[in-house]
């Protein structure tokens, strides 16, 4: 419970469980490019090195990732990878289990989203949520004010269905460090801003990752046209291109700082103008 804001060293590692070493290495490579500094641990291939999953490799990765108090989000590919990960958790020590979340998410999108969140200093639940939200049903950007549904989904469970149950989510502020509300803005009053995208290609992968990392570091919930600004996948799905105006809404203890950081980054053109 160190809070999400200002953490300089990402403490959440990702374990990528795949039937194929090549696939896991590729996912790790892709996520590393967008989220440098995050620990990405592949646990892939069968015990004999062929296609399949290995209980021992997964168990070792869980231990490695949780060493020194670290946390782990586990992503999987096909069905039996889930079974192997669950079995490894069933036999793992309690202090390891308590620091691991197994997420039901698309492997590539989930890994990228989780890694970017982790690079931004997000805590275990937030990284797990970023991965789960990569499935995307909660934030199509459709409808007026679809926004609040995208906020943090309540509950510390790793429930794989949380993200798809868009209606269940009220806007929950980060638990823990909020005992002292900011003096300036009441936490429940959202702040709004509009910003125009300046670079021609808009919020493609690199800028989206940059924004999501930055937003994850604030104790604030930021929505861009209804999409979760801390989710690289949600940002990319906006398909925002140069000249487009975005409506940004922030709430939470650091709403002002987050809003300013977002608009400044977009107005900078991400080094592409």
């Amino acid at each position, binding site marked *: 419970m160190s809070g999400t804001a200002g953490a300089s060293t990402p403490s959440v590692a990702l374990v990528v469980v795949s039937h194929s070493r090549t696939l896991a290495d590729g996912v790790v490579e892709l996520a590393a490019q967008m989220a440098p500094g995050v620990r990405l641990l592949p646990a892939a291939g*069968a015990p004999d090195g062929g296609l399949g999953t290995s209980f021992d490799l997964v168990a070792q990765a869980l231990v490695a990732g949780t060493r020194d108090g670290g946390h782990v989000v586990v992503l999987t590919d096909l069905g039996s990878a889930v079974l192997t990960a*669950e079995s490894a958790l*069933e036999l793992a020590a309690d202090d390891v289990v308590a620091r691991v979340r197994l997420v039901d998410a698309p492997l590539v999108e989930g890994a990228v989203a989780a890694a970017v969140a982790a690079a931004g200093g997000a805590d275990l639940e937030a990284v797990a949520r970023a991965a789960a939200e990569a499935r995307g049903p909660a934030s199509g950007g459709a409808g007026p004010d679809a926004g609040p549904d995208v906020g943090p989904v309540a509950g510390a469970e790793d429930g794989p269905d949380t993200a798809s149950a868009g209606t269940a989510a009220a806007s929950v502020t980060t638990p823990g460090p909020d005992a002292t509300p900011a003096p300036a803005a009441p936490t429940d009053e959202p702040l709004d801003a509009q910003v125009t995208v300046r670079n021609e290609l808009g919020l493609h992968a690199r800028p989206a990752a940059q924004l999501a990392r930055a937003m994850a570091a604030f104790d604030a919930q930021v929505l861009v046209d209804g999409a979760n600004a801390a989710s690289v996948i949600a940002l990319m799905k906006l398909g925002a291109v140069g000249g487009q105006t975005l409506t940004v809404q922030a709430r939470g203890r650091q709403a002002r700082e987050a809003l300013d950081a977002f608009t400044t980054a977009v107005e900078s053109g991400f080094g592409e103008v």
Partner: protein
Amino acid sequence: MSLDAQWAVAWTRAAAAAVAEHRAELVELDRQIGDGDHGENLHRGFTAVVQRLDALPEAPAQVGEVLKLVATTLMSTVGGAAGPLYGTAYLRAAKVTAAEVLDSAGVVALLEAALEGIVVRGKAGVGEKTMVDAWTPAVEAAVTAADAGAEPAAVLRAAADAAEEGARSTIPLVATKGRASYLGERSAGHLDPGSASTALILRAAAGAAS
């Protein structure tokens, strides 16, 4: 033979032998509707189990000790879904068999715990063309036999008979769980390999008891 740790060892060796004998058949069943590795994976797993049994410094005292060894070894050495599924089954079974000898109720408890482990892990129900279709009738038959006062060996025979019948019942089914579910309608007309290996393993349990 009373159902003690030596029975559990004999069961395990018999299961390993049955899997070795039917390896090609399991591979072929899995090739038809899966990824073709079930026979090889189980064979590798049970071969490793037997090696660990051989390496034990002294004979196990309780049934559960043997089943725990099988569980952890299968999890570590069987790739694919079968490792976690059978591993969890044996693990749950081990937890309810910390006894020197099993009576009929103990056999039922073993089988019930195994089925529960498979259902928890695989989340499949009856009729989805998985090993659950063999395990479920096996447990039901064991309960019925035990309630009727059958000896432990007879309870195991009833379970094995029901598992074989349950395996055959998967032939017309369309798979909705597991790798075969990707085939949809095309999975019908084939015996589910997981239910086939379940029948082999439970027949080995009955054989070792008689």
